[in-house]
């Protein structure tokens, strides 16, 4: 790692460099943005050929990316200062965030071939920062899933073992990072879709405070939960990307009109000062039954390392977390059944005529189109949500779920607050995913088993707090990556990043490199 301003020694294979080092190399003239973009496009072609290999990308925007990179090089040649600390660095964009000039599918047949007519605010901010967008990454359809197996375009595969899932819904973005196809990626997290893929691919992913990043131009799943966030292979890169995309946007009414927390400073502080004097809570309910032994061992080792580094570790109890999954799988289907009503076959996307003999009306066309255009998980959740919102069941299901949300928020308030017998924790920690990457097909026929992958991430989503996953190492029982989840109070991103950075520093000191750099060499058969 290099000091600010110094030109780093970049590895011969540029795809293995961090975003921070690539940006410094480009700003210092060691390498051009076009060379960096081309190296990543070559890597994508090698490991992601069509739908074989990793299959992280649904669409690669080679020409657009090289144009954006050339513009960064031209600006530098003209003597202009870099547009941001990430100018010229390539990024993989989850295909639920719209970008003009690239098709947007949200992983669904119903949007196949749709070209969005505008840019998301996140896209605009990335382009203004000089970030080079390589393409759109695979996801579970409309971000509903934990494995990318619900993508209409086939699953992505985990670079640690191509027979295993890369997590979901943002498995494409996480796989792209772990396979060195991009050093940066954008994810969205509704119940864990940034953190669980990060955990099972050994990468870093952060869900900011609800409202921290604009959702204008992000295809909606569950509006009271959806949040956009940064993903990368190092904590510093994640923080740099966080600062590029976060901040108030008048086009998103849920966007928080507050300054963005200084997360890059927090990362430097974590490196310099570690966690000495911080109070870290271990959530009793996020462990035990349902958690793989190798995951729990890695988690306990991480907590011991933080304690040895001077953090005060306390156990906290959040008794209502056990109802989190149930509440989530009522709130999410309810909101998504409403949000997905916009796919009516009239204004964009697929249109399918009803079967011969049926009358052709707006209603029958809409019904036939949605029947043909939506996949199984989306249909399940639309029906479940329609049920939970229907007269007579609303109070028992949706209403009760919203009350559970209040109780879970109360548990967090107790854990973070110091008053009234609160535990006064700076952050809370848990495993980010209860298991390491499972095999493709293993859980695809059992929706409830699939939902359990979100066990540890859902409470933070329901409470709207920031939470991230940073690799804690490899599980002894499977040899696959494990994620450490760090949760902080609303707008408390600085404490979260400080702990993540301190932990990453401790891990490198002990193991010699970060987890992503220890991934086995990827072999893709032609």
């Amino acid at each position, binding site marked *: 790692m290099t000091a600010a301003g110094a030109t780093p020694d970049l590895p011969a294979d540029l795809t293995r460099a961090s975003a921070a080092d690539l940006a410094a190399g480009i700003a210092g003239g060691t390498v051009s943005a076009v060379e960096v973009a081309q190296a990543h496009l070559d890597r994508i072609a090698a490991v992601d050929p069509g739908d074989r290999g990793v299959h992280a990308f649904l669409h690669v925007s080679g020409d657009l990316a090289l144009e954006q990179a050339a513009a960064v090089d031209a600006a530098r040649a003209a003597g202009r200062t870099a547009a941001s600390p990430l100018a010229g660095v390539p990024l993989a964009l989850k295909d639920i965030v719209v970008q003009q000039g690239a098709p947007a599918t949200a992983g669904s047949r119903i949007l196949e071939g749709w070209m969005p007519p505008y840019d998301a605010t996140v896209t605009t901010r990335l382009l203004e920062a000089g970030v080079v967008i390589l393409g759109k990454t695979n996801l579970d359809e409309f971000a509903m899933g934990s494995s990318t197996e619900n993508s209409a375009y086939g699953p992505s595969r985990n670079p640690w073992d191509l027979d295993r899932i890369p997590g979901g819904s943002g498995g494409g973005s996480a796989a792209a990072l772990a396979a060195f196809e991009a050093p940066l990626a954008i994810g969205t997290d509704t119940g864990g879709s940034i953190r669980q893929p990060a955990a099972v691919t050994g990468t870093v992913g952060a869900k900011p405070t609800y409202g921290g990043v604009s959702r204008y131009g992000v295809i909606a799943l569950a509006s009271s939960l959806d949040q956009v966030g940064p993903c990368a292979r190092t904590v510093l890169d994640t923080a740099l990307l966080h600062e590029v995309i976060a901040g108030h946007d008048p086009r998103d009414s849920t966007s928080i009109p507050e300054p963005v927390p200084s997360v890059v400073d927090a990362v430097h502080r974590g490196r310099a000062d570690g966690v000495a004097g911080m109070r870290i809570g271990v959530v009793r309910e996020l462990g035990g039954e349902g958690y793989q032994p190798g995951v729990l061992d890695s988690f306990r080792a991480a907590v011991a390392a933080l304690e040895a580094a001077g953090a005060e570790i306390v156990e906290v109890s959040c008794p209502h977390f056990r109802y989190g999954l149930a509440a989530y799988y009522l709130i999410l289907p309810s909101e998504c059944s409403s949000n997905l009503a916009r796919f009516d076959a009239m204004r964009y996307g697929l*249109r399918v005529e009803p079967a011969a003999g049926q009358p052709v009306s707006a209603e029958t066309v809409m019904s036939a189109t949605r029947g043909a255009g939506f996949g199984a998980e989306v249909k399940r959740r639309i029906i479940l949500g329609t049920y939970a919102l229907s007269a007579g069941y609303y109070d028992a*299901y949706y209403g009760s779920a919203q*009350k559970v949300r209040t109780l879970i928020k109360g548990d967090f308030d107790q854990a973070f607050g110091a008053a009234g017998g609160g535990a006064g924790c700076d952050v809370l920690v848990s495993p980010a995913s209860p298991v390491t990457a499972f095999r493709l097909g293993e859980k695809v026929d059992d929706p409830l088993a699939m939902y359990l992958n979100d066990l540890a991430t859902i409470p933070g989503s329901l409470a709207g707090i920031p939470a991230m996953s940073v690799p804690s190492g490899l599980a002894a029982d499977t040899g696959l990556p494990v994620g450490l989840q760090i949760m902080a109070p609303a707008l408390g991103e600085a404490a979260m990043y400080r702990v993540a950075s301190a932990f990453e520093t401790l891990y490198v000191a002990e193991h010699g490199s970060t987890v992503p750099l220890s991934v086995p060499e990827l072999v893709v058969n032609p």
Partner: protein
Amino acid sequence: MTDPSSTAAPALTRDDVAHLAHLARLELTDTELDLYLDQLTVILDSVAAVTEVAAADIVPTTHAVPLTNVSRADVLRPGLSRDAALAGAPAAEDGQFRVPQILGEEQ
């Protein structure tokens, strides 16, 4: 649909699933109806746990972060052009979305 007042979690029937799919304008095959009936029954059994702790005096949370309604200044600003708005439509004609018949013959 089954009478909601009879039990806390009435069993879902195949007709219920068909009715819900109709409300959601979602055409399902017979195979899908059978599959979703089984799966939704299992899921509903599981999520019904929320009723155990949802006491009457608990205030529901709709959004995790307090929100106030936001309005912008009433100033003209460019929107999508007509061509851009129509570019993704399944069918367009004379600068408008072309849609199937909406009202019945007798209306």
